[in-house]
């Protein structure tokens, strides 16, 4: 009974988070498209900024979750920690894909080219590819203890590149804007700041939803795999019977 009530409380919290995210996204759309002013030099395309930067922030959240889950798994191997790491990597790939596609759409207007091998862009692409590699490994290399530990090591190494992405513009220059990290901030209108903050809130909620949903699904998959193994131990082969 206690576990049923815990599940119901968890469901209620999840649905509350879904509701909060929906409200936040509607508010954010209004802020970006109806309230935030058009930027003087770049025009309307600057509004990509309000979900391009938060999408990379969502990628950082996923990568951080992957790091925490992976590190936790190496300390003590539980299905929950492995599931959290896997969910984190997937979240990182989803948000990284958003960032990698929306960035060039902004860049073609700002720089006149979709892609340039700028330090920020290059390190961000490398980081994205590390998490793609993590997911490919998890999809094709089985789900044994060895594979999980190897993936956990990759999840920890993947996080090492995050500070390099963050400080790449300061360290190596390049064309990438420094509006957010510039001294005092480069958003010159309060509604720009509001829309930007709203973007961060929306993508934080979205990342949390994705992490929770995928972690739960992976835990269920692990439980099912153990049940299948138990069935095989009892002489019941779940694969061969028709």
């Amino acid at each position, binding site marked *: 009974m206690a576990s049923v009530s815990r599940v119901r409380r968890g469901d209620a919290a999840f649905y509350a988070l879904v509701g909060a995210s929906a409200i936040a996204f509607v508010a954010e759309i209004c802020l970006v498209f109806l309230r935030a002013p058009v930027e003087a030099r770049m025009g309307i395309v600057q509004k990509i900024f309000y979900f391009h930067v938060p999408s990379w922030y969502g990628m950082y959240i996923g990568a951080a979750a992957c790091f925490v889950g992976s590190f936790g798994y190496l300390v003590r191997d539980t299905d929950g920690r492995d599931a959290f790491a896997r969910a984190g990597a997937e979240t990182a790939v989803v948000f990284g894909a958003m960032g990698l596609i929306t960035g060039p759409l902004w860049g073609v207007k700002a720089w006149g080219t979709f892609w340039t091998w700028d330090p920020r862009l290059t390190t961000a692409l490398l980081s994205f590819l590390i998490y793609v590699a993590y997911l490919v490994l998890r999809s094709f290399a089985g789900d044994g203890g060895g594979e999980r530990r190897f993936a956990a090591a990759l999840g920890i190494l993947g996080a090492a590149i995050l500070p390099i992405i963050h400080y790449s513009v300061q360290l190596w220059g390049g*064309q990438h804007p420094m509006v957010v990290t510039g001294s005092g901030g480069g958003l010159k209108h309060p509604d720009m700041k509001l829309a930007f903050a709203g973007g961060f809130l929306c993508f934080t909620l979205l990342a949390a939803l994705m992490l929770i949903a995928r972690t739960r699904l992976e835990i269920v*998959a692990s439980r099912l795999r153990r049940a299948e193994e138990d069935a095989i131990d009892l002489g019941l082969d779940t694969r061969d019977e028709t």
Partner: protein
Amino acid sequence: MTTQDTPNDRATTFQAVEGNAGEHYSGATLLVSAYAVVWVVLLAWVAFVWRKQSALATRVEDLERVLDNAAAERQKRG
């Protein structure tokens, strides 16, 4: 649009336009494309999760069938 600003200015500050915004490029198309990408990527993720759930459901059904068969055989044997 001003003519004095340098690429460095564009990289460090965003300022609100004064008066009507004059669009010389199809910035609106780029913006809508970027916005659409966010939703397409999210929907692709939803489809991916749905596929994973379907695979899990198939495995659960297989396990249930095997357990049902084993229970029926046990009953037959008495």
